[in-house]
């Protein structure tokens, strides 16, 4: 046999398993326009829904007149809160333990809020219907500033909560207050601050932005009145959780709901939440007996479905005069908008903000977060982020720079002397986490050497002198960042969403001829799961990745899982995949031993087969074993070859990275040019280097947008100022920097294959890196802190305030 002359390395290469840059199986469809996204779904008799939205940020809804709308040709129904109330669906629970209006119930709390839902034969008739609905509003005083929202005489936003002094996360101390969340040792931290050689204090604001996947949110709800079964296709990052939530709030038995996430055109956290469009579409399908599609417009998307960040982080960092950090204090005011719809694990109302000690060995720390209501859209989603890790990383990486200024130290050196050392892992952080593994110093030195750090500093100093001599108007900024992520939520003992433990799952079936299908509880939105998860299975059980079909997103067929966000797919579902594969391998071993007539312990796994120990010429390939499992009665072994694993991770994983950016800044116009961006990521074991690199490029580009111009902005009346792509900054290929990627590998000790996850690292790491570059350019002139986004006029303002325009 040809097979026998192949070396193990050759056989291994055929599998396209872990570590190889396998081309993506998804791409054959996508490159031909054969994807199947929600808006591609067409069903017989399908209707379209569209919303009447509030033009006011805060107003009483006095009346809604639907008569003219109902007279529009093609309009079949107009739903208002009054129609939903008898069903108990005019409000819905949020993921954060609050509740949210599905349709305006007496008042509106943000501009763009859903007021009425028009159902029509097509989107044109629906739009005409929306235009014909007449709503009478009485405007109310608007609060857009989270600090003013806490004034004693601030307008009451949530009248429905009147008198409620206890919220989902403890006491409420004001009518616009949601929760206070405290971590760490306040007294010890304040004592350290009081006695420290040096304390740097700064307000660090991470502004409001939006994930803006290229595909907006949408769904198709189809209630089959004959079978009583509801099928819901949608842009859901967590289809199983959506099914459970839909069952709980609608009263439809869970087995009668089938949720399907088809192809998703990017998610980035935008598609985790449950939105009024989904609820109204379900109700409309029940009422009309027909399938109902709702796909939001881009304006709807930017105005109403979610936002991210909006954290005002007041920080104090204490250190010895030599630069050894002795304590960290942070008080955050979190602007949650009109409803608390943040997508965080239940016990973490501020997500994993308590990873804000970052990569540093900080003996004591204290964190408090106050959540506040304002007249802005609800959301607070994890935009390419594991639950506020982005905010935490930005906070600590800015505070390090601020401290470096105070100490008059080089910021690279300050990081170096404060990193958690390799031998300290597993490391217990002052705010309660156990970092699994890391080697920060190695990564840091590799990064500094790769960019020629000392040379860059010399060049920067020369440029500064030339600037002072009037020979140039461009400064150089060198942005440094070393971030530590916390991903893979998470251990069921402390991570759940609405009571659903955050495990994940994989089921693998081997077919008689040796090919396979695997189904997972996650759902790809571009991450390439169909490619990478097959690679894990290929390496674990020796079936070529090309012979493995991968399915996700259909709750009728896939095992239950909590979905894809927070970089959790590889840490959790990837582990479940490896564990399910190992169950199969264990059974395969028994079958192989039986076929080879030796004891189970006398065979060992060798790439794609089990061989008799010491007699490599005697083996059974996985193909042979698969067939045997279906056609031979093996004593003591059930027929078939399949397994399922529900994986509850013992800990989170802690990917990290070192990023360095060099930026040229035009002092006169505020324009910038990114000269180079170096990204070193350590995500543990690398499954597909090509896909990892692609994730880094994409995440860093989202980070570039956020740092350099992207924001969700409101005026004082609560008018949304960035509702189209004219003003909401999404860079084109022209503005986007070129990236150099690099890596180190520090496997996770508790993950079955040592992988940590990477999708979000580049967003977490790049934002402080770009921002630090801007700050660094102006450091010689005394700049300490300036808020993002660093668009042209804000950079210009820095220079103006520093007197650099003469």
């Amino acid at each position: 046999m040809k097979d026998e002359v192949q070396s193990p390395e050759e056989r291994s290469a055929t599998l396209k398993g872990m570590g190889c840059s396998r081309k993506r199986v998804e791409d054959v469809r996508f490159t031909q326009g054969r994807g199947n996204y929600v808006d591609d779904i067409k069903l017989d008799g399908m209707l379209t829904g569209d919303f009447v939205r509030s033009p006011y940020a805060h107003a009483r809804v006095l009346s809604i007149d639907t008569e003219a709308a109902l007279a529009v040709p093609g309009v079949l129904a107009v739903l208002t809160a009054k129609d939903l109330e008898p069903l108990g669906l005019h409000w819905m629970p949020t993921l954060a333990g609050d509740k949210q209006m599905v349709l305006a119930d007496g008042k509106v709390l943000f501009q763009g809020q859903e007021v009425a839902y028009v159902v029509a034969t097509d989107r044109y008739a629906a739009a005409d219907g929306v235009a014909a609905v007449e709503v009478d509003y009485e405007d109310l005083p608007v609060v857009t500033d989270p600090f003013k929202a806490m004034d004693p005489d601030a307008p009451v936003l949530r009248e429905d909560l009147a008198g409620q002094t206890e919220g989902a996360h403890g006491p409420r101390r004001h009518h616009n207050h949601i929760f206070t969340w405290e971590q760490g040792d306040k007294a010890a931290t304040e004592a350290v601050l009081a006695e420290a050689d040096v304390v740097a204090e700064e307000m660090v604001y991470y502004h409001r932005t939006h994930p803006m996947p290229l595909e907006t949110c949408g769904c198709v709800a189809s209630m089959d009145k004959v079978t009583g079964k509801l099928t819901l296709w949608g842009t859901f990052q967590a289809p199983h959780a959506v099914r459970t939530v839909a069952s709980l709030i609608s009263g439809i038995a869970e087995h009668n709901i089938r949720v399907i996430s088809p192809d998703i055109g990017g998610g980035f956290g935008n598609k985790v939440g449950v939105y009024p469009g989904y609820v109204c579409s379900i109700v409309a399908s029940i009422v009309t007996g027909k399938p109902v599609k709702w796909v939001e417009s881009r304006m709807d998307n930017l105005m109403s479905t979610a936002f991210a960040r909006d954290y005002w982080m007041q920080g104090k960092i204490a250190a010895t005069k030599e630069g050894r950090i002795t304590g960290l204090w942070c008080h955050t005011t979190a602007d949650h908008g009109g409803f608390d719809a943040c997508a965080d694990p239940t016990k973490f109302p501020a997500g994993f903000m308590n990873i804000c000690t970052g990569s540093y060995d900080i003996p004591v720390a204290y964190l408090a977060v106050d959540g506040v209501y304002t007249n802005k859209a609800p959301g607070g989603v994890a935009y390419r982020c594991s639950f506020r890790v982005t905010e935490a990383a930005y906070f600590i990486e800015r505070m390090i720079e601020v401290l470096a200024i105070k100490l008059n130290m080089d910021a690279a050196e300050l990081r170096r002397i404060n990193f958690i050392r390799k031998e300290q892992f597993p490391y217990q952080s002052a705010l309660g986490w156990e970092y699994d593994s890391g080697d920060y110093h190695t990564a840091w030195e590799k990064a500094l050497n790769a960019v020629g750090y000392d040379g860059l500093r010399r060049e920067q100093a020369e440029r500064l002198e030339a600037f002072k001599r009037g020979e140039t108007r461009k400064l150089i900024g060198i942005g440094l960042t070393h971030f530590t992520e916390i991903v893979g939520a998470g251990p069921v003992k402390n991570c759940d969403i609405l009571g659903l433990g955050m495990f994940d799952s994989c089921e693998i079936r081997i077919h008689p001829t040796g090919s396979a299908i695997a189904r997972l509880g996650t759902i790809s939105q571009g991450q390439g799961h169909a490619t990478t998860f097959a690679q894990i299975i290929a390496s674990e059980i020796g079936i070529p990745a090309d012979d493995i079909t991968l399915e996700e997103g259909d709750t009728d067929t896939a095992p239950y899982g909590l979905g894809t966000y927070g970089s959790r797919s590889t840490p959790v579902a990837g582990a479940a995949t490896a564990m399910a594969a190992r169950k199969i391998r264990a059974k395969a071993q028994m079958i192989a031993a039986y076929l080879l007539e030796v004891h189970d312990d006398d065979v060992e796994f060798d790439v794609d087969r089990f061989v008799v120990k010491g007699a490599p010429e005697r083996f059974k390939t996985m193909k042979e074993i698969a067939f045997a499992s279906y056609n031979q009665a093996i004593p003591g072994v059930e027929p078939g070859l399949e397994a399922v694993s529900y994986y509850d991770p013992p800990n989170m994983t802690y990917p990290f990275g070192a990023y360095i950016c060099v930026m040229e800044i035009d002092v006169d116009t505020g324009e910038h040019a990114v000269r180079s961006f170096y990204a070193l990521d350590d995500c543990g074991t690398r499954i597909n280097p090509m896909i990892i690199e692609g994730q880094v490029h994409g995440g860093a580009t989202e980070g570039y947008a956020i740092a350099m111009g992207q924001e969700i902005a409101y005026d004082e009346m609560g008018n949304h100022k960035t509702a189209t792509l004219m003003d909401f900054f999404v860079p084109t290929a022209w503005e986007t920097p070129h990236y150099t990627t690099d890596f180190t590998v520090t496997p996770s000790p508790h993950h079955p294959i040592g992988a940590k996850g990477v999708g979000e690292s580049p967003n977490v790491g790049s934002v402080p890196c770009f921002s630090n570059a801007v700050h660094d350019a102006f450091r010689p002139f005394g700049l300490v802190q300036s808020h993002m986004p660093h668009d042209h006029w804000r950079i210009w303002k820095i220079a103006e305030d520093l007197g650099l325009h003469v």
Partner: protein
Amino acid sequence: MIPAGFEYHRPADLASAVDILRAHGDEARVVAGGHSLIPMMKLRMADLRHLIDLQAIGALKGITIAEGTATLGAMTTQHELIENADLAAAIPLLREAALQIADPQVRYMGTVGGNVANGDPGNDMPGLMQCLDARFELYGAEGTRQVAARDFYEAAYFTARSDLEILTKILIPVPASGTGYAYAKQKRKIGDYATAAAAVLIGSDGASVAMTNLSDTPVWSEEAGTALASGDIEGCVAAMLAAIDPQEDMRGPIAFKKHVAAVILRRAIDSALSRRA
């Protein structure tokens, strides 16, 4: 983002187009490339019942250069303008500016006529045409007339064109050979309108300076041109700063825009001077 209903017309000649305009008054609008009008219709901010598509009217197409004048049919797209080598040689300022407008797809559809006729203060071509001292030919029931670009713009979206006229041609005097030129534009990204943009011509017999998106109309300043012609760059900048009236928007506050206007203008002047033969 769904427009209200309308009737569609695709006349084959100008007379028919004007007849339709006359028949429906202000309920009718002409559409060229549509990349200004159609987004407004989708937002239901442009209210019309009759849309007159000019694509079939041959008289609105073509680029000719003769007797010191370049004539651009109003339906000339930005892409066609960029690709026309003769025009690029005669008036390189046009190509330099057009390449900074919108993005490739929009330049394939967007027309010079639409860009100048719409009266949108964000558009680049109006200021450019004022700098070049172009004339616009208007066709209406009363026949044709010409209006100087420098007299055309009255306020945002208000121009000297009546609702019953169609802008048919843009006539641009070809600058003397050796004239220095530059179009400098600061914007947040590809596809954005200008934070500030400046068109500059410096010849042996004079200079012309115009700026874009810094007022509710394009700003051409005779005083600025005169100063520049005499070599007084600071006088030119000062005159222009006195003439602009920028508004705060997401691009930045007024003080920033004024500062940037001066910087961009100086850059355009430097560039134009370096190109002057």
